[in-house]
Each structure stands twice: as structure tokens, then as C-alpha cells.
């Protein structure tokens, strides 16, 4: 799957799941954590969506801010994981 496509899938999920993302112009570079769009509990939902929709297993040590700052970061993380798997 293309990186852009991955970004779109994540963006759609976030817009549908988090009310605060809907009204704001969230794009792949928007800060998700600092802006309060997604909190700790919300991130759990994002992780289970990634595991389900992209068929990856997120390891404990990968649950760090660097992988989840923005949609671009998440998509890059997913691509990295998928490559390793493929």
C-alpha cells in the first residue's frame, strides 16, 4: 500500500472517531497529542485500528510518542512495520 493511501486511511479513522478532529483541518502533519485531538485512551483505539486494518502487531516498545506524533509519523511507522513483515 502506498504511504499516501495509508495516511488517508488513518486520517479517515481519526476524523470519524475523534470529534475534535472533525471540525479542525486535521492533515497528516497536525500534532495529534499536543493539540489534544487524541489522548492516552484514544491512542489505544488508534493502535487497535492499526493492528486490525493493516495486519501489523504493535510491540510494547513501539508505543512511544515518536511513532504517533502526527498522521505522517503513524503512516511511516505502519509502512516500516509492513515492509519488515513483507
Amino acid at each position, binding site marked *: 500500500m502506498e504511504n499516501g493511501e495509508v495516511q488517508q486511511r488513518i486520517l479517515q479513522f481519526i476524523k*470519524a472517531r475523534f*470529534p475534535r478532529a472533525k*471540525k479542525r483541518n486535521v492533515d497528516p502533519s497536525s500534532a495529534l497529542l499536543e493539540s489534544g485531538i487524541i*489522548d492516552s*485512551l484514544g491512542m489505544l483505539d488508534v*493502535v487497535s485500528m492499526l493492528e486490525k486494518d493493516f495486519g501489523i502487531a*504493535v510491540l*510494547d516498545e513501539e*508505543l512511544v510518542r515518536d511513532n504517533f506524533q502526527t498522521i505522517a509519523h503513524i503512516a511511516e511507522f505502519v509502512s516500516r512495520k509492513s515492509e519488515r513483515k513483507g
Partner: protein
Amino acid sequence: MDFLLHHMLCTTAHRFPDKEALVHGHERLKYADVLRSVSGLAQALREIGIKRGDRVGIFLEHSVAQVIAIFGISYAGAVYVPINCLLFPNQLAHIAASCGMRVLITANSKLGSLLLVLPKIPTLEFVVTLSDSEAPSTPLRRFDFDEMTRNAVPRTWVDWGISRDLAAILYTSGSTGKPKGVMLSHANIMAGASIVSAYLEITDDDRILAVLPFSFDAGLNQLTTAFQKGSCLVLMNFVFAQEILQTLSEERITGLAGVPTLWTLLTQPNSGLLKQSFPDLRYITNTGGAMPQSVLSILRRALPSSKIYLMYGLTEAFRSTYLRPEELERRPTSIGKAIPDTEILVLRDDGTRCLPGEVGELVHRGPTVFMGYWNDPALTEKTLQANRVAPAEVGREEKVCYSGDLVMADDEGFFYYVGRRDTMIKSSGFRISPTEVEEILFQSGVVRDAAVVGVPDGMLGQAIKAFVVPQEGRVDPDELLAFCAERLPKYMVPKFIEVIPDLPKTNSGKVDYSELQRREGYESGL
């Protein structure tokens, strides 16, 4: 003799000047450093004209500066008003205007978003800011926080207040209307620190991890117990459970306080909790709602050498009860018994005592009972009442705190939480007023009628559900949720919205909240 909040810091700094007091990220301060900054800030506040009892707001993330501000304001003789960083500018403005705030301590990066609401706070004269970014221009006089903390303190310092004076106002939601200011005296806060540090057996060997905000009484209590005993307080903001676990290990944390959502996060299968051991972690405490039993059993397995304290408290009386760890096995759903130097009564509506097994209102008697609600004598009179079951020699002057929480006691005097007497919602450790959420729903303009209730939720304790009646046509629940999310802090945004043709009403025409809760399968004590 220590009788004002900052006295505990002065005493500890003289006992342990070189001991680590505060850690946040790469910042590490000793007690002598903390006292120097605190007294410097106090002197600077007096120089700009702070008077005894002036209200000074603190709108900062968890940080060293936040701790310096709390103690510095007390040292100066003023009253501190902590404001949760999750709040929106309008809510901050309500709090600031309500308490007649004169000074606001915040960060340049936050000031920009507040510019529009500052004119709504007529009493506000100064802002004191952290220079974390360029300062936006404001019509108010602005001072630099760090510069203020570097002030020299005169050799003779005179405290202005006594222990019965107001030390802090903590804003919290009631069942109706806007947040109310809970007034705490220095004596309240000092007693809270002594009582809690006694039963948690806190000493100067402890290293306490603070993740709860200081605008929340249990969070504040971690700070005061640590500083009273000379422990080290480690501050952190987190997103992932991993970050907490890492800090527990790296900082050799001995004590951690949390609310149910924090424990739920930590016990998720991917948190890593069960793969590590935490031999230093002496105790954990839960407050702000019942801990789900499934979570509790994972924690007991994961932390075999840590004592688990289940506590119950309300801002108006700080902490009220706790369950001794050795009782956990036998009664994991109990909130325990009264904290030291405190009597907990369970009373019927007529003011007489309930029998074991009978549900009544929890009434708190002791030195942590608050002074009243700021500028709200009617609500104060309802909450602080004479002790009708007091021995004759105590008389009717002493006030006890009516919690609004329904509880019952078993034959051995252990208490169990049953529910709320009113419509207030308790979700993820926060108290939420249905009317505050309803007000925003009405502001959307698409809703003719709205009622908000708490529904059972495994993770949050209660989740917020809104019932709405459309103005005309149809209402898109997703659009309405998005509207709320732009105007309310996350913990106040409904999880569910249900569109219904009409709200159930009582005979007197008021919304029948108990009927709505019954529909949600809630057997409340209403």
C-alpha cells in the same frame, strides 16, 4: 511551628537542603533550590503589590514552575487558584472572574489563546509568564516568571496569615451550573498532608510519581505529603503507559497515585506491566472512582510487593476514607474506613444514623472539612451543616460536610459507595455537571431540549450520554459531538448522543433524570 502551607517547605529545606526535592525531565532541584525560587517569587509578588488574600491563578502544565508558583503564592500571603490545563479559555475566564483573580501565572505559549477572554476578567491586573515562546502583546502588565524567582529575599520576613486563612480555591463541578470554588484553609491542606502521609507511611526515603494534576485534590495531596516529609516528587506528563513504567523504573519510584483510567491504561495487554518488575514501588493508591475488579486483579498480580490502597475523597473534604491493603483480599469493592482524625457518618434524610446495610449520605467530620464555596453562601449552607449527631459538648457550631454521595456500611463498619444523590456525573476521576454540558448542546442551535446523564462504563466509571430533542428536522449526532469537542474539555464531551422525540418529565415538569438513568439500566439511589 508549621501552620502555613509554605512552612512545610521551609522546615524540610532546613532539614534536608541538599536532598532531591523535584524532578521533571532533565530538571532536578534540591530542597534548598526550591525554597530559594519560592521565596524569590514571593518577594517579587509582594513588590508588584500583592496583598494578603489576593487570588493568584496558575494555568500551567505539570512542571517545576507550577510547584514553585503554588508555594510562592502561599509564601507571599496570597491565595492560589490552580486551573486544569485541559480547560478552555472561556472556562478559565469563568474561574478567574468568579474568584476576582488579580494575577495569572501562565506561559507565553498559552497566553495567545487567552487574549480574547482576558477582558472578561475585570479584576486581572498582571500576568506572570514563563518565556517558553515569544510573548504576545497584551494590555496587561507582564512579568517574567524566572526573573521573579531570582529575587533576593529580605532577612526579615513576616507572614501575613494564620492557619485558618484561605490558602487555595479548587474549582470543581457540582450537579448544576458552572464550576464552584472550594475554599481550603492552610489548616485543611496541612491536615490533609499529615493524615495521608501517616496512613501511607510516607518518609523522606520515598520517591513519589505525580501524574495527577495539582488542580485535583489527590494530585495536590501528593505534592504536600512529599514536601512535608522530605520525599522526592517526580513530575511527568504522559501519553503511553510505557512512559510511566519507564519512569517508575528509572526514577526508582516508591509511590504512585492514580485514577481508574490510569490503572486501565497500565493494565492493557500491550502496556508491558506484566513483563517488568517494580521492586521499589512500595504503594499505589486509587481515587476518583471505583477501580474495576478486573484491573485490580491484574495489578495485584503484576505488583506483588506493592501495597494497594483504595481511597475515596471529595474536594470539599480532601480525603475521606481508605481501605487498608490487608483488607483488599476480603473486601475488594469497599472504600474502607475513615482516614485518621476523621469521623465518617452515614445519615438518613432526617439526620439520624443509618443502620449497617442501609443506604444513606456520607457525611464527613474532621480537620479537612473545607471553608465553604467561594462567594456562594446558599450552596455552602447546603453542604456545610451542623453536626446533628454530635455529642452535646461539641455543640452545634461545628460544621460537617454533606458529600452528596450515597454509601452504606457493613456490620464491621466498612463503607461501600452506592451512587450520587443528585445528577452529578463522575467520569475518569472528574466531576461533571450535566447542566454545563447541556448548555453547550443548546448553544448548537439545533437542539430544543437536552439532558445529560452518566451511564456505566468499564473504563471511565461513568461515561457521558446526552439525550437530545431536535429543534426541527434531524440532528446529526456526529456533528453535534464535533461542536461539543470544540467547546468542552475532552472529559466533558459526551461519549454517546441519542436523539429522542421528547424527554421524560416529572409531574412538576422538570426533566426526569432518574427515568433516563433507569432506561440505561442504572439502579441509582436517586
